[in-house]
C-alpha cells in the first residue's frame, strides 16, 4: 500500500504537489473566517498533503519529515489548544468558550471574540490533521520500528 509507486510521472507530480496541498490546507483553516472553510476541511487537506507522499514516494521520504508519531501528538496538541482557549475565560468571570470576557487594554470584546474563534479553529484544524494521519498510519502505514 505504501511505498514507491512504479510510475515516474506519479512520483514526480506527487513530490511537487504535496507541499502545496499542505499549504492550501493551512490556508483553508485560516480562511474559514471569511469564506467556506474552517478547521475541519482545512485539517483534512493538510493531512492529504502528508498522506500523498506516503502513498506514492519511497518509505523513508515522508516518514523522515513527518514520523508516525505526528498523528497522536498533533491530535493531543490541538485539543490542548482548544481546551486552553476555552478554559481561560472561566478564570476571568466568563463561561466556557466566552472569549468576550478576555478583553483587556489591547483588545476590546469584539476583537477578543474574533481572535478566540481563530485560535479555536486552528486548534480544531491541527486535531483533525493529527486524526487523519493517525487513521492512515493505523490502517495502512508502516509498522512503527
Amino acid at each position: 500500500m505504501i511505498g514507491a509507486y512504479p510510475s515516474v510521472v506519479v512520483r514526480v507530480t506527487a513530490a511537487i504537489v504535496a507541499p502545496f496541498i499542505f499549504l492550501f490546507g493551512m490556508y483553508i483553516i485560516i480562511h474559514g473566517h471569511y469564506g467556506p472553510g474552517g478547521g475541519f476541511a482545512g485539517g483534512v487537506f493538510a493531512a492529504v498533503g502528508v498522506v500523498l507522499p506516503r502513498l506514492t514516494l519511497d518509505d523513508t521520504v515522508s516518514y523522515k519529515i513527518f514520523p508516525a508519531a505526528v498523528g497522536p501528538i498533533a491530535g493531543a496538541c490541538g485539543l490542548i489548544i482548544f481546551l486552553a482557549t476555552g478554559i481561560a475565560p472561566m478564570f476571568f468571570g466568563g463561561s466556557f468558550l466566552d472569549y468576550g470576557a478576555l478583553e483587556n487594554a489591547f483588545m476590546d470584546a469584539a476583537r477578543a471574540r474574533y481572535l478566540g474563534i481563530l485560535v479555536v479553529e486552528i486548534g480544531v484544524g491541527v486535531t483533525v490533521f493529527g486524526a487523519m494521519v493517525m487513521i492512515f498510519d493505523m490502517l495502512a502505514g508502516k509498522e512503527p520500528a
Partner: protein
Amino acid sequence: MNHLAILPLLFLLSGAILAVLAGTLNKNAPQVVAITATASALIASMLGLRTVTQNGPISYELGGWPPPIGIEYTLDTLSAFMLVIVTFIGMLIAIYPARIAFDHVVRRNVPVYPLTLLLLAGLTGVMSSGDLFHLFVFLEIFAIATYGLVALGGDRGVFASFRYLLFGTIGSGLYLLGVGFLYFSTGTLNMADMAQILPEMAGSTTILGALGLITTGLGLKMALFPLHIWLPDAHSFSPPGVAALLAAVQVKAGAYALLRILFDVFGPAYTGSAGLPVAQLLAWFGMAGIVYGSVLATRQSDVKRLLAYSTVAQLGYIGVGIGMGSRLALIGAVLHVLNHALMKSALFLVAGGIIQRTGLKEIARFAGLGKRMVPTMSGFAIAALSMVGIPPLAGFWSKFYLIWAAVDENNWAVALVIVSSSMITLVYFLRMFETIFVRDASEAIVANAKIASPTVIGTVWALCTAIIVVGIANVAIVRNFVGPIADSLIG
C-alpha cells in the same frame, strides 16, 4: 455564574488529554490520571447534586451567548443524579486493576484510560446537555469510545464491536433525522424553547414522525427489545472492566435521553393517547424484553453472557417504568437506573475477579469457589440477592415501586410479568449459588485459588456497601432525590 454544570465534563476531558501525554512518560501514569480525573468529577457532580436539590436547576450558557441562540447546559435533579452515578462507577473502574479490566497484558500501546475518560466525558456531556444536537454529538463521542473499548475483547470482541457499530450508528442516524424534522418545524434546537413551542403544534404529522424516529433511534441505543440484538454479544465478549462500565452506564445514556425528550420536550400532548401510542409501545416492548431476557438468561452457561441477557431484562423494567408514566412508575424507573448500575457492575467486577485468579468463565466449573475466594463471593451473594429483589437490599425497592404503580392503574399484566421475572431471576441465581457455595471444587485451579487482589475486593465491596446503603436508606433517597425528579418530569 455557577460553573458546576460544566466542571465534570472539563475534568474528564482534560484528564483524557493528560492521560495520553502521561502515557508517553510512564506506563502506570494513565491510571493515576484517570483516578484523579474521575474523583474530581465525582466531587463536582456531588456538589452539583446538592446545589440543584437546594436551589433548583442551574442553566449555563456556553460562550456567553444566551439561549436559544447559544448552546445551553442545564443541570437539574435528574442530570445531577445520573452524573453522580456515572462518575462513581467510572472512578471504581479506574481503580480496578488494569490487567483484568481491559485484558491489558495482551495489548501494548492501547490507550485504554484515555478511551475510558472520553467515554465518561461523552456521557457527562449527554447528561448535562440542554440542546438536542449537542446531545447527539456527545452521544456519538461516547459511542465511538465504546466501540474501541469493546474491541479489546479478542477476536469475538472485534466482531461484536463491529455489529454494535452498525446498529448504534443507524440509531444515531434515525435520531438525527428526527431532530432535523423538529428543527425544520419549530426553528429551534434548545430543549426548553422547544417545550414551549411544541404544544401549539399538536397533531402535526411532522412532529409525530419526529417522535417516532427519535424513539426508535434512542431505543436502538438503549437496547430496548426487539432492538437489543447487539447487546449480549457486546457485553459478553468485552473485557470484564469494560463490561461493568457498559452495563452500568452505557444503556442508561439512552434511557436518560428518552426520559428527557419524551417528558420534557414532547410532553403529555404527544405521548398520551392523542399522539402516537409511544408510551403503550414502550410498556409492551419493555415487558417482552423482561420475559425474553430472563428466560434466555436461564439457558446460558457462560457467566458474562448470563449477565448480559439479565441486562436486557433489567432494561425492560426501565422501559416499562417510562411507558407507564405515572409518578410511582417514574420513581421506580429512575431508582432502577441507580440500582441496576450498582448491582450489575458489582457482578461483572466479581466475574473479573474470578477470571483473575482462575481464568474460568463457565458457571459449571465455578464449583467450590465460595469456600476459597470468600470476600469476592460474599460480595457476589449480596449483589445477586439484590438483583432477585430481596428486601431490604436496593433491588427490592425499584421492583416494589413498579408493581405498586402497575397495581394502581389496574395493569395486572405488568405486575404479573415483574413478579414472574423475579422468580426466574431467583432460579438462575440459585443455580449459581448452589454451584459456588454448596458443591465441592471439581477443578484443581479452583481448589487452590487465592482470594482476589485488594483493589478487586475493595471495588466490589464499595459497590455492595452502596447497594446496602441505598436499600436501607431508600425512603430518604426517594423523598429527597428521586421523588422531586419524578415530579419535575411529570409537571
